[in-house]
Structures are given as C-alpha cells and as structure tokens.
C-alpha cells in the first residue's frame, strides 16, 4: 500500500499514525468448507483484528504509531498486546477491560476462496473501546488517523471514532478509511450510516473488491463530490 498521505510532507516531518478498533484472536478451521455447523479441527489463536494488523504493519515499516483498543484480562489479550509491543506499536492506549473476554473471530475458508466468520466482538472487551485519557494522549500526537470500517460496530464506538476524526483533522492531520466490509457485518445497526459518514470525512479512501462497488453506489446516490481526495482501490485477497 503506497503511503500516499505522506506526499505533501517532508522526510523530517514528525509523523504518528493512530488507529482505533477491535483486537481479536483469530481461530481458523484447518479444512475448507461452509460454516461451522459440525465439529472441526481448529488452529490458533493468532493475533488479529483488521486495525491491529494494519497498525502492526505500519510499525514494521518503521512508522511511529499507536492503537486505541481494549482486550480482556486473558491470554488472548496478552498475546495481542505483546505482539504489537514487540513490533513497535504504542500500546499504552489499549485498555485491559475487567470482566470481558478478548474478542475472537472463527474463520473458515470456502473452496472458492471466500470466508465464513463467527465473531465475538460486540459483546467482548472490544465493546469497551473508547477515548479514555491514554487514548486522548495518543491522539494528541497523531498526524494521521486510520479508520477501519469493521470497527464501526456500535454507536459508542462510532461516537469515539467520529470524535477522534474531528480531533485529528483539527490538529491538521489526515484521515484514511478502509471500509473492510464483511457480509456478516451488514446487519449491524448504524454501520451503513457510519460507513457513509466516514466516506465523507476521509482524505484517503481504500476500498477493496466488493466494498469498492458498494462505495461507488453510495457515491452515485449521494452525488458526492470528491471530498475524498485520493481513492486507492486494492485487489481483494
């Protein structure tokens, strides 16, 4: 992925990329098939969560970065935090939530390459994501904020993301948005509306595959002018 948002900045410009969203463990079915309606051999846990993967890659590329999230007081949470910390992500804004388990995603590949998911996100530690003081401290030094559409799974989190977006823009920063839509997410209340809002707010738009088509329909219907100055359509994988 090209760092197009860095085009107008010099090499000496201090940069800090921050994202917010779910941290989960991913547990994969070892065999291909459809769904989880039968006992399966499973492999994992693997540290995961779309925004966590994103920010981990930023760190591996040498970028100053941090993440706002929440995990449980469990091994799944420790696994994720240790991975991110090891790779250079600022994890100070990742809350360890009492009485909640770290989120999880069970995934199984179909023969055609598509995937079926069973998520535990909305009622996991992920539901505790918000702009606590550590998060606000991290946001104050953000020059770029990345929004992952999959993270917009509840109104309180949409509220936190929107507040963060406005804060970073007020600081002169930029916003990128990857819809990262999964079919299992389309029935989440407020998500469609939140995706539209983020499309209006972002400077860089990074749709993939079917989410690119969904976004194009949204733009035609809303007759949006190019609020998003850069579209980067990526191949699905």
């Amino acid at each position, binding site marked *: 992925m090209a760092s197009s948002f860095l085009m107008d900045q010099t090499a000496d410009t201090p940069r800090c990329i921050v994202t917010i969203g779910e941290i989960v463990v991913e547990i994969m079915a070892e065999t291909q098939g459809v769904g989880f309606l039968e006992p399966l051999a499973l492999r994992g846990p693997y540290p995961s969560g779309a925004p966590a993967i994103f920010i981990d890659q930023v760190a591996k590329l040498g970028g100053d970065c941090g993440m706002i999230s929440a995990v449980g007081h469990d091994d799944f949470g420790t696994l994720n935090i240790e991975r991110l910390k090891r790779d250079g992500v600022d994890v100070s804004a990742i809350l360890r939530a009492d009485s909640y388990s770290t989120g999880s995603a069970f995934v199984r590949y179909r023969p055609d390459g598509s995937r079926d998911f069973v998520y535990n996100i909305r009622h996991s530690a992920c539901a*505790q994501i*918000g702009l606590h*003081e*550590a998060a606000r401290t991290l946001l104050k030094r953000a020059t770029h904020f990345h929004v992952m559409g999959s993270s917009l799974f509840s*109104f*309180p989190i949409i509220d936190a993301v*929107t*507040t963060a977006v406005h*804060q970073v823009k007020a600081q002169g920063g930029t916003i990128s948005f990857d819809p990262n839509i999964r079919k299992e997410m389309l029935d989440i209340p407020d998500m469609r509306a*939140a995706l539209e809002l983020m499309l209006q707010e972002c400077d860089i738009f990074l749709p993939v595959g079917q989410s690119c088509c969904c976004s194009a329909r949204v733009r035609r219907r809303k007759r949006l002018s190019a609020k998003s100055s850069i579209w980067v359509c990526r191949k699905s994988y």
Partner: protein
Amino acid sequence: MGVNSATLKRRLGIVDAVRRAGFVRTEALADQFSVSMVTIRSDLAYLQSQNLVIRTNGGAQPAYGYAVNAPLDESPTLSEARALARAVAFRLQPGQCVFLDNSLAASFVPVHATVANLRFVVNSFETYHLASRCCDGAVSLLGGEYDRLGYPLVSPAASHALSFYDLDLAVISVSQISKAGFSLLDQTGNCLEAAIERARQVFLLTDRLDRTEADAPLLEWRNTMSVLHGGSHLMVRCCARTGALLAGIQQAPNKGGAGFCCFSFLI
C-alpha cells in the same frame, strides 16, 4: 436495517452537545438540530440505551461512561471534577440531604444525580443556580453574608442556618491529605467545618493523594469520612462502560487511639 446517515450525524451531535454542556434541555436540542421534540426524545432514548446519556426531567446529561468520550479539549481539571462528581452521584441514596461546598467537583454533583427526592444544601449563589437548573430535588441556600461575586463570607448566620438541616452527607473537596489530617480546598465561609461536624457521612474529594502543602491548616480525620480520589492513572479504570466506578478499596492505617477506619475509594 439501522438509521440513515443524517440521523446518525444528529445523534452524534447530540452526544457531543450534552457532553460539552453537562446538561441540555430537550427544547434546546430541538432548536439546535431543527427537529421536533418527539425526534429528540427518540434520539435521547436511543442514546440512553447506548449508555451515553441519562435522561432527566426535561433534558439529558452525560452517563457514567462519559469519561470514555470526554471532549478532547476539556481541561484535566474539568474532566477530573466531573469524574469525582459522578462518583459522588453514584453513591447517593433517595431522600438524602446533601451539603455541597463551593468546589467545582461538588457543584457538578447535582448535574449527575439521578436518585429521587434529594435536598442539596449549598452556601454560594453559583452552586445554587447550577443545582436548581440540573436536578429535580430541592436546593437550599444557607444565607448569611456574601461578597460581590456571590461567594459566602465567614459569618455565623450560615452555620446557624445549617443547624436546621438533618445532613446525611457532606461533600467537601480537599487540597491536602496526609495521615495527620486534611485541609479544605474551599476556603469560603466557615460553615464547612460545621457541615463536617453535623453530617452522618462525609465524602472528601481530591484529584491527587500525594499533594501536600506546607503550613496548611489541617482538620482531623473522623470515622464518618470517606475519600474519593482520581488521578490520571486512574481515569482508565473509571472508563469501563460496565458502570463499575469502584476499582478497589484501600484501608488507610488506623490512627492510633481513635479507633476509626478511613476507606479510600478509587474512582
């Protein structure tokens, strides 16, 4: 399924408005967002179901999980004061008579109080006006002598007026805490000591446990006292949206011979 982006945007705006003001009337929100009162009530009902606001008679105030999404430009002093006020409000019981000093944290308690039939007893105009606008309970102004800004001067009249109230709770902010005692943050009026003396229970509010000031007059600990404190490292704990504000209880060392315990609540 779900709402359109205009509705989502409006609800996000309502949360922000309530968060910034501390309390907003339904009519004001309807004017601000150019929608009907019915629409605003529906929005507030939804936001309450999401634990972001609490609907009170005629309006809304931020919910306990407020600190999670506090305005990013809010000063630490203001956000800490709100957190302390929420911690007190959470512990109020219906029908209590509560004395509030003139500190910022104590003055915010009525904004966050939701239990019924409270009576707040105050001794400044500013606290009186805020409490009158934000809560459904009774608010009593002690009276006595006041300066031009409406802050009370030391006078026996306020202490005498206090004797007419059967205080369940006194909410007092402190500037210094040590094993030897504590000193008052609010230096206006002399009825604070009288309120501490008369109340069945005293909440001492502080944002720091390690602040000390040389030569500050100290008041003695009593067995009616509890300390509510918050600091930057504790704000993370009070952000859990479960609503559990009590992160832990620490028992301070007993003062020799007095036979009392002072419990410290981490918010």
